[in-house]
């Protein structure tokens, strides 16, 4: 491709953009809105802060990892000679009770995990909704600014016409 052809193509592209902007296909503030959208995502990353949903998700993962480990049985080893035998006897004697308690605890854990899962989904939904709301509001603000810009040009044109009219009078 010759340089002239490329320059012509780029000029055509600029014309197309101007036409599409005027037709509202590229609405006012579109690029700024997309830029702000990604900047808001990056901002969270740059500050090194985890989202609320991310923090809850981490807790959920830890809870899921630890929950099955509740067995109701404790270690029987001991540094004192022969005391491990006593521990073993005691563990056998109360195993029925501790295992029962452990089963109850596991049931509670399952309920807590289910609750955390709901909270994570809720926080994730809210964050997305907040993000969308901010983007929507920014778009409205930029739309209004574009309208003000447009009005400014109309007023300026009217003033020019008025001045010409007065000069003609």
């Amino acid at each position, binding site marked *: 491709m010759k340089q002239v052809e490329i320059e012509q193509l780029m000029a*055509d592209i600029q014309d197309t*953009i101007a036409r599409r902007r005027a037709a509202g296909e590229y609405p006012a503030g579109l690029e700024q809105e997309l830029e702000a*959208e990604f900047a808001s995502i990056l901002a969270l990353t740059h500050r090194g802060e985890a989202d609320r949903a991310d923090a809850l998700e981490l807790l959920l993962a830890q809870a899921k990892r630890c929950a099955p480990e509740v067995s109701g049985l404790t270690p029987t080893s001991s540094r004192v000679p022969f005391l491990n035998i006593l521990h073993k006897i005691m563990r056998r004697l109360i195993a029925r009770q501790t295992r029962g308690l452990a089963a109850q605890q596991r049931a509670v854990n399952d309920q807590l995990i289910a609750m955390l899962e709901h909270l994570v989904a809720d926080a994730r939904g809210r964050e*997305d909704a907040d993000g969308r709301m901010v983007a929507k509001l920014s778009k409205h603000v930029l739309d209004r600014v574009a309208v003000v810009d447009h009005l400014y040009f109309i007023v300026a044109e009217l003033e020019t016409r008025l001045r010409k009219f007065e000069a003609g009078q």
Partner: protein
Amino acid sequence: MPAVHQIIVGASRRDAITNMALAMRDSLRTRYKSEVYSFHLPDESVIDEVIPLEKLSWGKTNDVLVYHSSFGIPRLTSMLQARSEKLAMVYHNITPSSYYLGNDPEFAAALQWGRHELSLLQPLVSAAFADSRFNAEDLAQYGYTDIVQLAAGVNPFRLKYEPTDSRLIGELHSHFPDGFILAVSQVIPHKRMELAIEAVHLLRTVHRLDIGLVIAGPQRNVRYARDLAKLRSRLPEANVLMMGETTESQLATLYRTCALYFGTSDHEGLAVPPLEAMAAGAPVVIRGVGAVPETVGDVALVASPEASLCELTEMLHAVLTNKKLRAALVMRGREHVRNFYSQDTTQVFLQRINELTS
């Protein structure tokens, strides 16, 4: 016979610097003992070709070490300072650390050290090479003189004989029946992949083109990858497939089947993927940053670095819909890479190395 060994930071068959070093090694072996050593353990793809740096023995004073600079590792700097061999440097550019200060401070520190290392090694370097004019100008700022500008070992046709992955073609067709735009790069912040996602979102929503986006390259920055995933969830229309690290055959298939190659990076020392795309017959639209304009010439649609998202979208739209423009870019692109590859840069490199060893 004197030895001319090369040192790279990391090694993988998918890494442009590794491929350049291996191609240069083959040329060096015609006259010298020559190996490629890597500071980090080499990836499995090159385990038989690249040697861990700890195995590099002490050389003689007329031997040469060719160091490929692209990053900074203090331990490697002190090791280079302590060597008795002559030192040559091939500069591939170091990304400005500002992109990483926020989300990966350790990586940013390594990049800053890389630039500091350029100053530390300058008095020790006997021959300096840069693989683009942009890189040569950058290196000159650190006091280097007589920099030889050459892209030795870059082969845009390296994937020519890779088999096409027919299974991947099937998957791509089911994802994107009407075609896809391809971006090939490590997924890291300064590559600006968000621009590609946003542009495809506009192509689909404003232009009503049923086009998808494939991003091929390893996700080296977890936070940035997560940010892109969030952006994708907020712009579901964008229709993006993140391929991650690909095999050579998959990469060749992507180049051969894409509708066009799109480069969005903010900083490029030498852009190899657009050359590979041209060699495979794909038209290229790319932001003209760093060494990009001199590398792709006038055979790609090069956007100014300040081009707006709408401009980039319109350029993509023009190439996707204007058959005459596409054909011109494809034909001229092939010719350009053929000329690029036919320049015998390795001979210039060897000649300079000969001067050092004689």
